[in-house]
């Protein structure tokens, strides 16, 4: 017992508590139920609903348990006559203005007010007067409002301020006229906005896409893992009649706490888009037709078989990093078993030059929860707020505690916490910008690094010195590389320079992580140079860049939409169109696939298959399928198993996904990721690219095939808009300030696109969103471009 520990008595039981705790925290910890509406463990205490009133000995009136600090020897009664009467009275007041519309309320069955009304309400209302009515507000495509039901607990308001870091909802008016809303009609812009649905204890804020589609008690709940960023947020699927009705967070304190990003919450809608591939399809001289599985496999045997047998090195295999570990493991086992080493998942890479030195998988360099403990972080080439919302949430917590978070980016992405420093660098100058910080820090520390050849011609600015000084401060630091950094044409140089900087600063070196299973793809062997577990591959192969550049005789694709997913989309489309045979396993069918593919095999995705994702901190997390894939589609691991059989590759005849996972886990056993020194040292930095350049960021709701088809998310602002984003100054320089549209030229191609003026984009930079198949002809995601008025 430390001297922090005290004893209190609740309902006759003696409980241990820590000084400073609120009474409700202690009762919660000991499973003594005190009713509440406004209190929430992750939010500040508002104490405005008064539902939690309890009797405390020597106190003249009942006290709110959520706002009463415990004191040694305190005697509390939670169910005494006084307490119960107080709770009942509060309930009566709350119900005065609450509508009796439970039968048509989506919250019915999971409503805290309904539950407590059962426990504490009277069966007859003494209130005869008119109830107040509050007009509903349109706050965007995700959250539905029924504001007459609001009980003013302000959880949603506190969430905006304290967690989302974006105060969007507020309480306007007062007394009888107080209303929760945005006051000026506008959509919620937070990438975490959906959490207010869970927080709202009544049916005032509910899920818009889910509205009126099921009653809570008709659904069954199953655990799952979120399929978009590398965090691996824990979720629950809510299923009715074989259909995923909605997705809600499952609590996991070390990963997502109790939160879920909007993308992870609403992307399940993509399962039900009308371009699902529901039957195997083949293309012959009469065009496309649906066939049964045997016919499709026969075609694969006929077309792909001979090429794979006679010239396995002329076949390329690419699998999306959104595939499960089981699918990835089988995919590479099949190809390697057939003698083909051309396997990759790095669709968004343009620079593979350091791959032999790369870590087993680029990982966070620390645990997710440890991000909260940081004193200092430098983020290079990334927008964690949109790309890894719940990693950003941890960084934000650190920032609010006083940590200094800094960014180096070619555009200034709006942050939801104050940044200690922000350095804008043209994409072609990012490496040098980071090298400048490195040099400044080396000089500051009188480190010999300052004299190394690659730093020789690097200039240092004051801004870089400031960042170096922050990094030099004692405390826990980290240097993190984001998604944009991974895609750069000189990404390898950036990894080297950033790693050097982290070393010099004594900071952890990490990657924010790209897709849901990027880590699993590295570990599962979906890279040419290494097999499962990071062991050297039996035969070397081509990386994704080389496959696209050189073209292959045949391709096997898994969940890939090259026009939207690849950083060199035009090269990919050309290579695929020129191939003799393209077999694509996918959950959706696209116009592009109709052009390049010869066989389409429908596979299940996300909730439709058993699977495992490895998160950016290295944690493998598995789930079981909760619904069947549509039509003839089958779980991917089963399709791959039969495909292996069809192609005469042995060793893939697994009976269950679990067996696949077991073999994959065996290969990965004992593997520890290490980012340090996992780079290719340079003697000279690449020359900075001058002139107008294109950069590409992938908006969060365009990041992968599933979310691109989620209807409600596609109505938000966070999706690829097909516009040219550039600053006023840049626009003026190229005469496109008022032209509305401009012609952008890249790699010999030209497109006319709308101009979106945005001063957050750096000088001489045009930002174009990735994840948009319509812009595939424009060439690679980075590089010099031309611009003229349309």
């Amino acid at each position, binding site marked *: 017992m430390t001297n922090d520990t005290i004893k209190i008595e609740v309902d006759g039981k003696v409980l241990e508590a820590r000084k400073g705790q609120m009474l409700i925290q202690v009762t919660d910890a000991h499973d003594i139920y005190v009713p509440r509406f406004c209190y929430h463990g992750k939010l500040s205490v508002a104490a405005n609903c008064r539902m939690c009133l309890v009797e405390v000995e020597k106190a003249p009136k009942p006290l709110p348990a959520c706002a009463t600090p415990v004191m040694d020897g305190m005697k509390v009664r939670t169910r005494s006559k006084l307490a119960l009467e107080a709770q009942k009275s509060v309930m009566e007041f709350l119900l005065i203005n609450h509508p009796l519309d439970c039968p048509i309320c989506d919250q019915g069955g999971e409503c805290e007010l309904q539950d407590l009304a059962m426990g504490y309400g009277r069966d007859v209302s003494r209130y005869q007067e008119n109830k107040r009515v509050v007009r509903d507000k349109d706050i965007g495509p995700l959250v539905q409002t029924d504001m007459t039901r609001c009980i003013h607990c302000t959880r949603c308001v506190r969430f905006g*301020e304290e967690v989302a870091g*974006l*105060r*969007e*909802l*507020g*309480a*306007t*008016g*007062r*007394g009888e006229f107080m209303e929760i809303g*945005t*006051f*000026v009609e506008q959509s919620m812009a937070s990438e975490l906005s959906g959490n207010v649905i869970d927080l709202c204890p009544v049916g005032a804020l509910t899920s818009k896409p889910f509205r009126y589609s099921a009653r809570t008690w008709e659904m069954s709940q199953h655990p799952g893992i979120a399929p978009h960023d590398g965090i691996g947020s824990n979720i629950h699927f809510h299923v009715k009649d074989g259909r995923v009705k909605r997705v809600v967070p499952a609590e996991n304190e070390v990963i997502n706490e109790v939160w879920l990003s909007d993308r992870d919450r609403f992307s399940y809608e993509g399962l039900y888009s009308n371009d699902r591939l529901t039957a195997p399809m083949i293309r012959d001289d009469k065009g496309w037709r649906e066939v049964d599985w045997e016919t499709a496999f026969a075609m694969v045997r006929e077309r792909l078989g001979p090429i794979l047998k006679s010239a396995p090195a002329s076949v390329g295999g690419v699998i999306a990093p959104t595939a499960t570990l089981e699918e990835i493991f089988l995919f590479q086992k099949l190809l390697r078993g057939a003698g083909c080493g051309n396997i990759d998942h790095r669709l968004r890479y343009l620079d593979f030059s350091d791959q032999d030195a790369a870590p087993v998988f680029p990982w966070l360099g620390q645990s997710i929860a440890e991000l909260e403990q940081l004193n200092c972080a430098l983020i290079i080439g990334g927008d964690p707020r949109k790309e890894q919302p719940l990693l950003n949430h941890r960084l934000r917590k650190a920032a609010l505690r006083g940590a200094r978070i800094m960014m180096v980016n070619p555009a200034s992405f709006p942050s939801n916490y104050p940044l200690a420093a922000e350095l804008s660098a043209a994409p072609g100058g990012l490496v040098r910008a980071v090298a400048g910080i490195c040099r400044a820090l080396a000089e500051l520390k009188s480190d010999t690094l300052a004299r190394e050849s690659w730093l020789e011609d690097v200039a240092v600015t004051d801004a870089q010195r400031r960042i170096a000084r922050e990094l030099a401060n004692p405390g826990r630091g980290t240097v993190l590389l984001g998604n944009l950094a991974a895609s750069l044409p000189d990404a390898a140089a950036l990894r080297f320079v950033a790693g050097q900087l982290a070393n010099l600063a004594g900071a952890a070196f990490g990657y924010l992580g790209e897709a849901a299973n990027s880590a699993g793809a590295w570990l599962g062997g979906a890279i040419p140079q290494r097999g499962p577990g990071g062991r050297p591959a039996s035969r070397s192969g081509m990386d994704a860049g080389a496959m696209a550049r050189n073209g292959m005789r045949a391709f096997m694709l898994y969940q890939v939409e090259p026009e939207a997913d690849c950083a060199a989309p035009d090269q990919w489309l050309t290579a695929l169109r020129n191939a003799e045979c393209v077999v694509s396993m996918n959950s959706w069918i696209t116009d592009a696939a109709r052009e390049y593919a010869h066989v389409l095999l429908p596979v299940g995705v996300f909730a439709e298959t058993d699977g495992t994702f490895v998160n950016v901190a290295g944690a493998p997390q598995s789930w079981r399928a909760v619904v069947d894939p549509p039509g003839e589609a089958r779980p991917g691991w089963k399709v791959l198993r039969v495909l292996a059989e069809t192609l005469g590759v042995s060793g893939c005849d697994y009976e269950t996904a679990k067996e696949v996972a077991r073999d994959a886990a065996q290969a990965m056993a004992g593997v520890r990721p290490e980012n340090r020194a996992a780079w290719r040292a340079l003697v000279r930095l690449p020359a900075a690219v001058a002139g107008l350049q294109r950069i590409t960021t992938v908006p969060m709701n365009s990041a992968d095939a599933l979310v691109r088809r989620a209807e409600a998310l596609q109505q938000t602002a966070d999706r690829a808009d097909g516009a040219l984003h550039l600053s006023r100054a840049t626009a003026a320089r190229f005469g496109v300030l008022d032209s509305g549209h401009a012609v952008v030229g890249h790699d010999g191609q030209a497109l006319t696109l709308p101009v979106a003026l945005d001063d957050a984009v750096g000088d001489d930079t045009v930002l174009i969103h990735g994840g948009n198949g319509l812009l595939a002809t424009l060439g690679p995601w980075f590089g010099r471009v031309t611009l003229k008025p349309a």
Partner: protein
Amino acid sequence: MIEDARKTLSKHARHEIDQWLAKFPADQRRSAVLAALREVQHENGGWLSIELLDAVADYLGMPKIAVYEVATFYSMLETKPVGRHSVSVCTNISCMLRGADDIVAHIEKRLGVKTGGSTPDGRIHLKREEECLAACCGGPMMMVDHIYHENLTVDRVNAILDGLK
């Protein structure tokens, strides 16, 4: 953002706000919000537009919704255009016992507007008064453009209203 706010707020308003800001710690700029809104409303003919509220928010570095909350909470701040003169009759307990409700009924009839409304000629805004105005011993009372009138009778009310230009 702050540049846009500078353009929207008059030089005089900014000067006033700056004076208030000087009284608070530098990281507590929001403390000046009431003074800022009062001043900006005064310059704008007695009400605050969304544009002005946003400008105040940006100028003070506050979330916009936080300024909307303040502007809608205080009854002396208006978020819709109102008449030139503001008339508020106290209807709280002491005044009510001394006949405030009759005074309100009379004014409503004479002006042809309900509390909360303004006369069509834009002359008078009959406010909905929320709280006791702290002149209980002189009830019934009303406040006209910051001036208290106590011990009201119908005749006195008529004279006061007729005197408003």
